[in-house]
């Protein structure tokens, strides 16, 4: 048996690990810049699929299917991102005689549509955010909605996304004006002037339920994850279990998720996302029809291997665990390590990783897509690795995260480790007192720099003394020029200066 991984980075490595433990051969694909990436080094065989831009490599269905055929692969795993939620690709994979490691294309298409999935969730009895199921056709519909549900409400452009095309209305007098502007903005930005209305969920938490279903109709939920620490709608830190979900709420969330799974004839892994409001009410948000980045925290807490389970399910095997066997133990936290500089407005930081000292010891897992000397290319998502800690309880997991961060040393690229080191010292983070807007608010307030400066206050003077000693020791020698890696260094230096003028000339 041979499985082709239509992906790169840490998730390709994760899938190779699962296959190796299952005795399944692995076929890696790589773009020109990824020839020596860990997923290529680890796979049993590997095939080039074109130049760096994803559209010409990892997103090129024809090339992927050609490699599948040439390599004799029987299965194809899309990972997450790239083509993972592309139902057309899933259909082409199946038409080529391969097993698609994912849900049926029909379910992918259904749950991939905002309107359809919302209707399905409603019909399955899952709570959805009160709102009109169809676009507003005139102002009186909107007024009727506000009469019934009150203010504030959220006006959303049908074609919007990623936080754009949304407008909050808190004052009844502004209703008409806001509606008009929302329509014209939608037209201007997205070429579609239609607008929905929903009740605004204030300071919500993002809670998602991991579901697993087989082809025979068996389905379970494997607890929930809390993913409220987001930057610009991208998850940054995730936890399992949610600090605010108890057994009773877990059961209700799980059952709501399973109702959706059953109503959509879903099988394979999936994630049903909910918003949880400050009153403890939850609402269906969307479903992700793939393996999730943050699956490891669920694995740690429930003691299961989701990727192996996903492959077994694709092969037609029945679910290997029953609901009552899924008992959580302890608490897990994941931090996404990106090649970005949090102190320079998250400027991307590609380059060569010259030092990569990983944390280890009890309760520390690292799922990494790089090793020492790896080059982080410009062309893809800048996630380098996921640091996952587990401990018997949340307070200990926080301390362990702090400890693991203190051991993690990376040179050559800037990383979001700086962000996590500041976060882990914050009372609000330690007390789980946050919502989906927490991090963006923190970042715009400038408090991150302040927090960073408060850690280890003597460090700056020690750094200055160390630098003076190093300069003394190297005086008369050529500069080590450790920043310089051919072409990589000039832009780094220039970029740093230009972005914020902080790096010395």
């Amino acid at each position: 048996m041979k499985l082709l991984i239509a992906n790169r980075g840490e998730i390709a490595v994760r899938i190779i690990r699962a296959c190796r433990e299952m005795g399944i051969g692995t076929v890696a694909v790589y773009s020109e810049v990824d020839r020596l990436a860990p997923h290529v080094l680890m796979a049993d065989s590997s095939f080039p699929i074109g130049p760096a831009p994803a559209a010409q490599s990892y997103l090129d269905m024809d090339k992927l299917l050609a490699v599948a055929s040439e390599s004799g692969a029987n299965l194809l795993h899309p990972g997450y991102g790239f083509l993972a939620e592309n139902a057309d690709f899933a259909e082409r994979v199946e038409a080529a005689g391969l097993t698609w490691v994912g849900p049926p294309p029909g379910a992918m298409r259904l749950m991939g549509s905002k309107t359809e999935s919302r209707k399905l969730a409603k019909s399955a009895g899952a709570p959805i955010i009160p709102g009109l199921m169809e676009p507003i056709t005139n102002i009186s519909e909107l007024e009727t909605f506000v009469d019934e549900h009150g203010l504030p409400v959220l006006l959303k452009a049908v074609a919007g996304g990623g936080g754009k095309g949304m407008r909050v209305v808190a004052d009844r007098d502004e209703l008409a004006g806001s509606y008009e502007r929302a329509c014209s903005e939608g037209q201007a930005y997205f070429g579609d002037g239609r607008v929905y209305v929903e009740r605004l969920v204030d300071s919500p938490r993002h809670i998602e339920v991991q579901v697993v279903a087989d082809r025979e109709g068996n389905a379970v939920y494997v607890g929930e994850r809390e993913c409220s620490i987001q930057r610009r709608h991208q998850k940054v830190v995730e936890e399992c279990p949610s600090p605010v979900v108890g057994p009773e709420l877990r059961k209700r969330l799980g059952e709501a998720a399973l109702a959706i799974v059953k109503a959509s004839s879903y099988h394979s892994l999936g994630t049903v996302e909910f918003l949880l409001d400050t009153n403890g009410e939850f609402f269906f948000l969307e479903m992700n029809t793939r393996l999730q980045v943050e699956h490891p925290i669920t694995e740690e807490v429930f003691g299961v291997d989701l990727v192996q389970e996903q492959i077994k399910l694709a092969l037609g095997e029945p679910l290997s665990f029953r609901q009552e066997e899924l008992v959580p133990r302890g608490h897990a936290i994941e931090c996404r390590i990106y090649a970005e500089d949090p102190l320079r407005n998250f400027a991307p930081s590609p380059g060569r990783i010259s030092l990569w000292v990983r944390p280890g010891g009890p309760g520390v897992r690292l799922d990494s897509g790089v090793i020492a000397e790896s080059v982080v290319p410009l062309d893809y998502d800048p996630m380098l690795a996921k640091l996952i800690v587990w401990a018997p309880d949340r307070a200990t997991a926080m301390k362990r995260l702090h400890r693991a961060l203190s051991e993690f040393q990376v040179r050559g690229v800037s990383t979001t480790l700086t962000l996590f080191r500041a976060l882990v010292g914050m009372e609000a983070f330690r007390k789980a007192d946050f919502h989906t807007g927490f991090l963006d608010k923190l970042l715009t307030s400038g408090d991150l720099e302040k927090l960073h400066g408060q850690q280890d206050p003597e460090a700056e003077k020690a750094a200055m003394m160390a630098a003076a000693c190093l300069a003394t020791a190297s005086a008369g020698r050529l500069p080590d020029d450790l920043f310089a890696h051919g072409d990589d260094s000039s832009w780094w230096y220039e970029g740093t200066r230009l972005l914020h003028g902080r790096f010395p000339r």
Partner: protein
Amino acid sequence: MRWVVRGGQSSHEVEVERQGDEFTVEIDGQRHELELVSLDGAVASLRFLATGRSLQITYHHGSNGSWRVTVGQREFDLEVLTPAEAVEAVSAARDSGPSRLMAPIPGKVVGVKVKPGDEVEPGQPLVVLEAMKMENELASDQAGKVAAIHVVAGDTVEGGELLVELE
């Protein structure tokens, strides 16, 4: 040796005497006896002889006296200059002429936030560049007036390409 060490907002005069791995450092009027030994040119151990306090440091040596040093969990970009270099650097900054904003990385221009003739403040975004699946705001590092803009939204640019000139 005598150094001017600059980082963030502060600047310190530092006097260092070296004997092998041991250093006597005077900073802000205080003397410290230190030991600094390097594992491999990137990781080193800094130890205060008086207290035994130990710090693992990692470091990179850039050009023009720039050092990036991590101590504990914090990272610092520092300049270590001879007193003569320090004087020169100050006057160079004072006399800085027209400024040119160049693309720090290859990418796609997704927005130009200013037009010729605009007065800009330090830190004001000039161009938005998409790279690594992210939008990155390129900001001015000084006040000035926009003299020329060399790109429009939609352009693909190489690293180092000139984007905006200030006068």
